[in-house]
């Protein structure tokens, strides 16, 4: 079903034998638009999301330590935002993950969100499949931690860990109707600071309304390591969730649609026309719609 570029298959075969260089090159090929069919594997993907600065990378670093000590191999796709002005990106998630590069059982690839304002690119799913097929027993996607992406992570991750922290005030209120309902586990980080228990309590109360089986909430401290073991036991017990097909495909559709729109060859032209008022937004959609090129499975 997918277009197989020559050379990709060789890279994949080599990556499956444990060649990190080939795996790394293969991920670059996928990022550049290449596609590869992967055998289905038992691996599952954990999406880690939450507002900026709550400690997503730090907590992932802690989790990776525990997983590696238990003999698991962990691959992390860490997404950071690209500048809307220059298109460039400063990818610094791995700094906060402790020292992932000192262990053979950890693989970290930093990804720039690029043209995808939701921060999640359609090829993430393929990257996860490749990593699982290459024997990485735990695959984690860390989102940019901004708005929409918190929903779109559903498209790529089997399970979702939402991280929040103390002293973020009303933002928590605003989020109550959103990702909180989709999260499988919630971690309130920075338990070493005051107020984190209060945040956990207020989220617990918010979730109790209307839900018979409220989402488990853990208070953890990525810095001190407290509560991380319990959180991970909870995550390990979850396993993949098969009941989200419609939701997953909905978000996958949206992110692929956005990607197609933003890489449209005539987007600059249409933005210019919109700026000078010569067309309306619906004119632009009509005119560009016939020429949309969808990156995911467009070769069927």
């Amino acid at each position, binding site marked *: 079903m997918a277009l197989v570029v020559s050379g990709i298959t060789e890279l994949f075969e080599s990556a499956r034998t444990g060649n990190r*260089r080939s795996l790394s090159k293969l991920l670059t090929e996928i990022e550049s638009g290449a596609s590869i069919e992967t055998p289905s594997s038992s691996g599952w993907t954990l999406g880690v999301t939450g507002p900026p600065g709550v400690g997503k990378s730090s907590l992932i670093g802690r989790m990776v330590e525990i997983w590696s000590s238990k003999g698991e191999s962990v691959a992390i796709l860490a997404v950071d935002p690209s500048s809307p*002005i*220059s298109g460039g990106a*400063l990818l610094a998630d791995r700094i906060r993950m402790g020292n992932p*590069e000192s262990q053979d059982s950890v693989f970290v690839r*930093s990804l*720039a969100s690029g043209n995808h304002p939701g921060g999640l690119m359609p090829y993430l799913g393929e990257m996860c499949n490749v990593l699982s097929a290459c024997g990485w027993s735990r695959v984690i996607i860390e989102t940019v931690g901004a708005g929409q992406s918190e929903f779109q992570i559903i498209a790529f991750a089997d399970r979702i860990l939402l991280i929040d922290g103390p002293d973020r005030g009303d933002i928590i209120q605003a989020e109550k109707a959103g990702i909180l309902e989709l999260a499988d586990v919630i971690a309130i980080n920075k338990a070493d600071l005051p107020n984190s228990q209060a945040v956990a309590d207020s989220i617990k109360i918010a979730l109790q309304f209307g839900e018979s089986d409220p989402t488990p909430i853990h208070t953890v401290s990525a810095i001190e390591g407290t509560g991380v073991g319990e959180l991970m036991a909870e995550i390990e017990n979850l396993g993949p969730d098969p009941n989200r097909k419609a939701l997953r495909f909905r978000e996958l559709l949206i992110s692929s649609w956005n990607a197609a729109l933003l890489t449209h060859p005539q987007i600059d032209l249409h933005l210019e026309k919109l700026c000078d008022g010569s067309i309306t937004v619906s004119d632009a959609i009509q005119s560009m719609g016939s020429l949309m090129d969808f990156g995911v499975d467009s070769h069927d």
Partner: protein
Amino acid sequence: MVAPLNYCGCLKAASHLDASRMRVVIAKPGLDGHDRGAKVVARALRDAGHDVIYTGLRKRPAEIVRIVNDEDADALGLSTLSGAHDSLIPKICHELRSNDLNEVIVFAGGIIPERDRPDLFESGVRAVFGPGTPSSSVLEFLETASTRRNNGEPVGVGEDSRWHW
């Protein structure tokens, strides 16, 4: 109002089809806690449209090589102000080569005296930038190196060439 047009232009620049956009690792090898320079360079590269991965402080050569591999970087910038450049940088270059990372473009910056530079060039470093270097020089270097690579001219750390900036 030029902003929307700039925005359109940058969307194009961020496209994966753009050959001039590079993935660059900026690394701090060894026991050196000063990274203002590394951060300034990282920021300048980002502003020029590149994807920059900053390693953070105090990385061992093997860790830097691992990061360059896993991130599939096109270029590696090594910042050192500790005086250990003459042992650390050649070691990193050597390890890049022995890990099949011959095509990676290596450049260095920090407190590196003139007299030490020939040895670094000898070990595969393609540019050394000292204090006071305008960030535009680093960008020009990367552009030139990238052009060389696209033309099939040797420029990587494991590619035989006398060329340097």
